[in-house]
């Protein structure tokens, strides 16, 4: 199957996904279950990585500013901008693509190879709507909160690194993170997050839903889905940046 066929099949899948749920109570339960699986269970990894990457960005910036004419508050400013513009929305989404993407593909793929999806279809359940729509809703609504948490912890990590290493003054860092605050940049990061969340929920679902074969193929599909999700996020990031910031 060539790429164009895959793209066509992906959009046809979305056509089935975006139909009214057959039972709203069941759908609501599924959304809460997915928020737990895709969102709450990712809080730990996002918090951990954001904190340390924020620290590393602050240290690297401090180490590379040796010119006394450059104000030290630039460390806080650069850390804040890097985290808000790219690290939190893009880097965290790539991490989530790895963690959540493989989970989505393997869980839906296992259902496919063990005939659970056939069982849903035979019962008269729209399996794509039942399995994929709650994942999309959970990701699109919960990931912005996760990314905001990543932003706070990244900036906090930079502050902690400065305090612990004595490489810059706390006052300079705090001045830097307050300097030239633009709320649009937060909005820009959240727009990117919502689009990346949609990609993270749907591309792995596509790979899992249409898997053929056994457990080996499910494993291969999981790897492939993570690769494609990351590729699509990186390409989307480029176009979104060009559209929203230039």
């Amino acid at each position, binding site marked *: 199957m060539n790429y164009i066929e895959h793209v066509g099949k992906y959009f046809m899948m979305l056509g089935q996904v975006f139909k009214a749920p*057959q039972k709203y*109570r069941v759908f609501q339960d599924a959304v809460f279950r997915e928020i737990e699986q895709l969102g709450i269970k990712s809080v730990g990894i996002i918090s951990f990585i954001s904190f340390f990457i924020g620290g590393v960005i602050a240290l690297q910036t401090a180490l590379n500013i040796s010119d006394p004419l450059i104000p030290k508050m630039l460390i806080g400013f650069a850390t804040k901008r890097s985290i808000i513009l790219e690290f939190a929305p893009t880097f965290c989404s790539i991490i989530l693509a790895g963690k959540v993407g493989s989970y989505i593909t393997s869980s839906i793929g296992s259902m496919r190879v063990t005939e*659970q999806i056939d*069982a849903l*279809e035979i*019962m008269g359940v729209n399996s794509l709507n039942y399995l994929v729509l709650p994942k999309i809703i959970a990701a699109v609504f919960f990931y912005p909160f996760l990314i905001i948490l990543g932003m706070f912890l990244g900036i906090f990590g930079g502050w902690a690194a400065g305090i612990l290493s004595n490489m810059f003054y706390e006052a300079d860092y705090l001045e830097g993170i307050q300097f030239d605050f633009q709320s649009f940049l937060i909005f820009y990061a959240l727009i990117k997050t919502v689009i990346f969340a949609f990609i993270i929920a749907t591309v792995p679902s596509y790979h899992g839903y249409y898997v053929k074969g056994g457990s080996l193929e499910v494993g291969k599909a999981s790897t492939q889905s993570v690769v494609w999700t990351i590729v699509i996020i990186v390409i989307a990031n480029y176009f979104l940046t060009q559209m929203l910031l230039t």
Partner: protein
Amino acid sequence: MIEVNDIHKSFGETKVLKGISTSFEPGKTSLIIGQSGAGKTVFLKSLLGLHLPEEGSISYNGQINTEMSIEDKREFRKELGMVFQGSALFDSLNVEENVMFPLTMFTKQTRPEMLERVNTVLKRVDLENSNKKFPAELSGGMQKRVAIARAIIMNPKYLFCDEPNSGLDPSTSILIDNLIQEITDEYKIITVINTHDMNSVMEIGDKIVFLKNGLKAWEGSSKEIFKTDNQAVVDFVYSSNLFKKVREAYLNEK
């Protein structure tokens, strides 16, 4: 009653079903047998409405599949139960939730009403006190019984089973066979089983349809299969020495 009228089905250049006609009656257990590649699975999927035949038709109590609207098909699917080869239970749900699933999706019953129905059905398949267990904690035979319970929870008119005995030991296979036959008789449903198990053929086949190369090569009851001189059936059913001796003993007794 299900009436199959000269159905044909191809995949690309390969003709899988080449004109099969037969019928299945309520309260009777019908078995589809045949070698691998004979077209049994495609035939069963056609009966389930998952494949639409290119020629011919299937009518369910007078309702012809090719003339059904999307709404009719949705309603029809609520009237059928299916037991899959690997049980196809939902891993993330426990026994109670698995059996309750069709009720949750398609009825407006309250939770106590649904639980009452679930417990009745689980009692019917001898699976009391397993409500909170997950599929991974059950044996193969217990999983099959949960699958049967889920298939009959909506009081279906039609029950389809794809190799319900595969992977089970002989005594559990007999239990599952008997359970399916009792349920068929009790609820007067139309049961169609796709099987390779010759014990099932001998024990519960009110009607047996033998497929070969996409065609119906023979049909009859489990009694008639002992007496048939159809060479294709004899070669397939009595390929093992044990069944040859069983047949000889049956014929000598007569």
